[in-house]
């Protein structure tokens, strides 16, 4: 079966000269959930930004059979939904429902249909009661769920979540894990949280200094790289 995402030899250097990715190879199958582990600055988030064409490095990325480049970026962004680490970055419209519908309206969907679909996504994320609130009035966990609803409503084939448990309390993490487990999409979860990864993902890769240095089950990778939470 052809992978939904295939990355070969991806390299990227920031303008300041920092080489963030030094030849990443990666494959994601349909319906699969993969955790991405690695130290801060190892290139995980830079890698994520490449998956829907927000950054463009050397090498090749294919999403659902489409080669990612400037021309195909708009099409690829419909296939790959990216949930950013900081929800505040993602929530910029005046009300929750408008924010969730933002992507749909950009796709040219009729406002009434966009509103209805945004409502369904909010319901799915357990946030239907907040539809008319201002995003800045929500708690960190609620913001995260709204940010996810904003992506779910676009019905992407792949979900990429960058540090989804940041700012979430344990009940919020459990709710998010439960939500993600019930979604049919293939998922890439960038996280430091091994417990969360164990709950959501079946496979893991490990990033070190801009390359993937390990691949296996979440438990194997966490053990091999001693990537569990610290104990006193």
């Amino acid at each position: 079966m052809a992978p939904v995402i295939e990355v070969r030899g991806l390299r990227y250097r920031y303008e300041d000269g920092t080489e963030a990715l030094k030849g990443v190879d990666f494959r994601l199958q349909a319906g699969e959930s993969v955790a991405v582990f690695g130290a801060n600055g190892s290139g995980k988030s830079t890698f994520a930004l490449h998956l829907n064409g927000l950054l463009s490095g050397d090498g090749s990325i294919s999403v659902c059979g489409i080669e990612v480049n400037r021309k195909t970026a708009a099409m690829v962004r419909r296939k790959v939904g990216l949930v950013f680490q900081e929800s505040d970055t993602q929530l910029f419209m005046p009300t929750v429902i408008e924010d969730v519908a933002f992507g749909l309206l950009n796709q040219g969907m009729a406002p009434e249909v966009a509103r209805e679909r945004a409502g369904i996504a909010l319901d799915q994320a357990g946030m239907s009661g907040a539809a008319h609130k201002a995003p800045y009035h929500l708690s960190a966990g609620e913001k995260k769920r709204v940010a996810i609803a904003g992506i779910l409503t676009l019905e992407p084939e792949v979900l990429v979540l960058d540090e989804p448990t940041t700012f979430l309390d344990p009940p919020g993490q459990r709710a998010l894990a439960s939500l993600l487990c019930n979604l049919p999409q293939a998922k890439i979860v960038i996280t430091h949280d091994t417990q969360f990864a164990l709950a959501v993902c079946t496979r893991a890769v490990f990033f070190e200094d801009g390359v993937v240095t390990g691949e296996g089950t979440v438990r194997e990778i966490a053990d091999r790289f001693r990537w569990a939470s610290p104990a006193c």
Partner: protein
Amino acid sequence: MRHTAVEEWSRGASPLHRLNPVAKLFPLAVFLAALATAHRELPPLGIGLGLLLVTGILAARLPVLGVMLRGGVVLPFSGVFALVSWLAGDPVRAIELVLKSYLSALAVLLVVATTPVPALLHSLERLGVPAFLLTVAQFLYRYLFVISGEAYDMRTAAAARGGLTFRAASGALAVLFARSYSRAGQVHRAMLARGFTGRFVPMSPPRLTAVDLLFATLAAVAVIVLRVAVERLA
């Protein structure tokens, strides 16, 4: 990202909020024209127009003092020119400058505080304002929040460590803009990730109703009648 009071006010539910933005923009244009072209009769006209604005603020259920204070945001700029005019021996012109700039700002603020920005910009687009100009306005508006959010975070962090001295504040200003630039880039990426194509599409495109037309006509007529009446009396 923290939003200002004006953004919150624009989400109100008063009859003024419910009007189509065009119904507010038309009398605003008449108001600004009447004010800009007034000279000898400016003080009484200014009082009359000021009272009209206060009526509008009350009708919009906005805090009168809060709106009037925020209208003063233009005074540091116009105040400099007024001071120059005063020192050059033209106090009447100085007062005119302050009065006109303040009332203009207050009128614009009343419209902005009763109209969500996406709806306002959508209406301006429909009125033929160039899309590029509106895109710049949209980003300027959005990124103002980015800067204010970053400034708030930095101020809190500084206060937690004993506050900022004047010298440290000048360095912090440079850091603020660097941080805001970085955050603005992140916001832009997040918008692109959800297919942003250069224009905000409103969720509920406003429609012009008979009530809107009636309000626009009455408000514009009120300003014109006031202007003519003051001129005749003067």
